[in-house]
């Protein structure tokens, strides 16, 4: 893959908190229009990886390049949707208010949103099909609508690389399906998505690339190639239940999964 088509390029990345490593020697490259599932058990460094790419956490060593630049040079092109449970859903803002926040980084200090910003917000809202709920207070949204609003904010930012932290958690099948369709639409428009999830069945079925993480990068490639009992065992250790079936391996989670 030619270097200039790389959206994201990470080399020998080490990062962690308070002296404890959460990521050890991670290296990989992602090309334009990829839909990457970042899978691993809890505490495997999925969120840390996203935060390090966003520049919220300084790596101990290693190099991260987004669109060929370092984090500060490409801030506006990287969008982030945090885990839904860390968001304050009782905060007094409407859906449109939140999506408009996606414009703030481009606006810079002291400038107020103008016509171009309102147009970008309207576009993002219709992309995720929330136009009709734009005036609602965010506490009135359902789980699926919440996730789509957080993605719309990243779209309003006109980000080309989207980092989504556990967008599928707690959604029913219909809402998951709707979200996956959105991912597909975004990818077809040239966006690149990195989606952290601990739901392996979802990764296997819907993403073209899977990054198996357990502090170290266990495997990176098409799900069909890397979903082998050996690699899954290495990533998930005792968290998984694997049953050989006729067609391959059934993967389930121990406990609540």
């Amino acid at each position, binding site marked *: 893959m030619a270097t200039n088509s790389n959206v994201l390029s990470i080399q020998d990345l080490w990062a962690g908190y308070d002296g404890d490593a959460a990521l050890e020697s991670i290296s990989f490259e992602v090309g334009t229009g990829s839909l990457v599932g970042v899978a691993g058990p809890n505490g495997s460094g999925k969120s840390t990886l996203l935060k390090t790419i*966003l*520049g*919220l956490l300084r790596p101990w060593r290693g190099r991260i390049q987004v669109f060929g630049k370092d984090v500060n040079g490409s*801030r*506006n092109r*990287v969008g*982030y949707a*945090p885990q839904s449970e*860390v*968001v*304050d859903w009782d*905060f*007094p*803002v*409407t859906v449109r*208010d*939140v999506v408009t*926040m*996606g414009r*703030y*980084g481009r*606006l810079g*200090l*002291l400038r*107020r*949103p103008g016509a171009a910003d309102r147009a970008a917000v309207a576009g993002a809202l219709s992309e995720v099909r929330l136009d009709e709920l734009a005036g609602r*207070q965010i506490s009135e949204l359902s789980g699926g609508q919440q996730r789509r609003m957080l993605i719309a*904010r990243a779209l309003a*930012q006109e980000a080309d690389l989207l980092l989504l932290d556990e967008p599928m958690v707690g959604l029913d099948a219909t809402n998951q399906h709707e979200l996956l369709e959105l991912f597909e639409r975004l990818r077809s428009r040239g966006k690149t998505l990195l989606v952290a999830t601990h739901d392996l069945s979802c990764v296997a079925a819907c993403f073209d690339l899977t990054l198996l993480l357990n502090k170290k990068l266990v495997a990176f490639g098409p799900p069909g190639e890397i979903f082998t009992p050996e690699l899954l065992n290495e990533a998930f250790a005792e968290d998984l239940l694997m049953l050989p079936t006729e067609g391959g391996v059934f993967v389930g989670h121990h406990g609540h999964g």
Partner: protein
Amino acid sequence: MADGSALLTAGIWGWIVDPLEFEFMQRALLAVVLVGIVSAVVGAFVVVRGMAFIGDALAHASFAGIAAAVAFGFSIYIGAIVAAVVTALGIAVISQRSKLRFDTTIGVLFVGAFALGIVIVSRQENYTADLFSFVFGSVLGVSWGDLQLMSALGAIVVALVALFYKELLFTSYDATVAAATGIPTQLIDYGLLVLIAISTVVALQAVGIVLVIAMLVTPPATASLLVNRLHYIIFVGVAIAVASAVIGLYASYYADVASGASIVLTATAFFVAALLFAPRRGIVPRWLLDRERAREFGR
């Protein structure tokens, strides 16, 4: 009949205007309106971010500066501001650099500052009434000079909130994503703490250390029961605060009670009314709706 209503109008007019013949009442009215506006603007952020404890703490911490100012003979306002701002930044830095919880740090620092104030006061042979006018508030003692200082500080606070509103909003709602989009969230957080510190000092003389927190929290909390966007909470909060200030001041004049407490009680009355009767979020409308639904389903 026309005479009667004219008489009534004249009576009400006199009731409103008469107290203002005293210059101290004019100053007091301006002071409480100013305090209401500044406190509600900053207080909206205090309420939506759950920072009530720090507002209370900074008011108490300013006591150290007031005591030092009285003991060593410099401006009480300068003493109060330095003490409140230093405590605010101390809380911010310590809670960030250590593993202590934010509220633990607040609890340690503000009582420490307050104790320092008591130590300074206890060394004084005869501490003046000045000192205690700040503890319990004495809006009738506000001078034109005080008023000028309060207006200048208040104008700075309101202007900064207006200028950096979108950064304050984003940081308050979702600091992580705000930081990721390049907003200097740490600077915004420190700045907000300094604004809270300054607005507590603006309110000190009018309502007193113990009641400052009510000016910060009660009107925006009432507004948050009525409207659901942050800037609406600010506007409605300001309206409620100004109404409480004016009504409370007149009530204190005619009933001859402490003005700070009278203003706070008026604001509290607005809060209770909103809690009970706010459309959608009030206790009574929600209860009525529940009863109606139950009846529809034949229960």
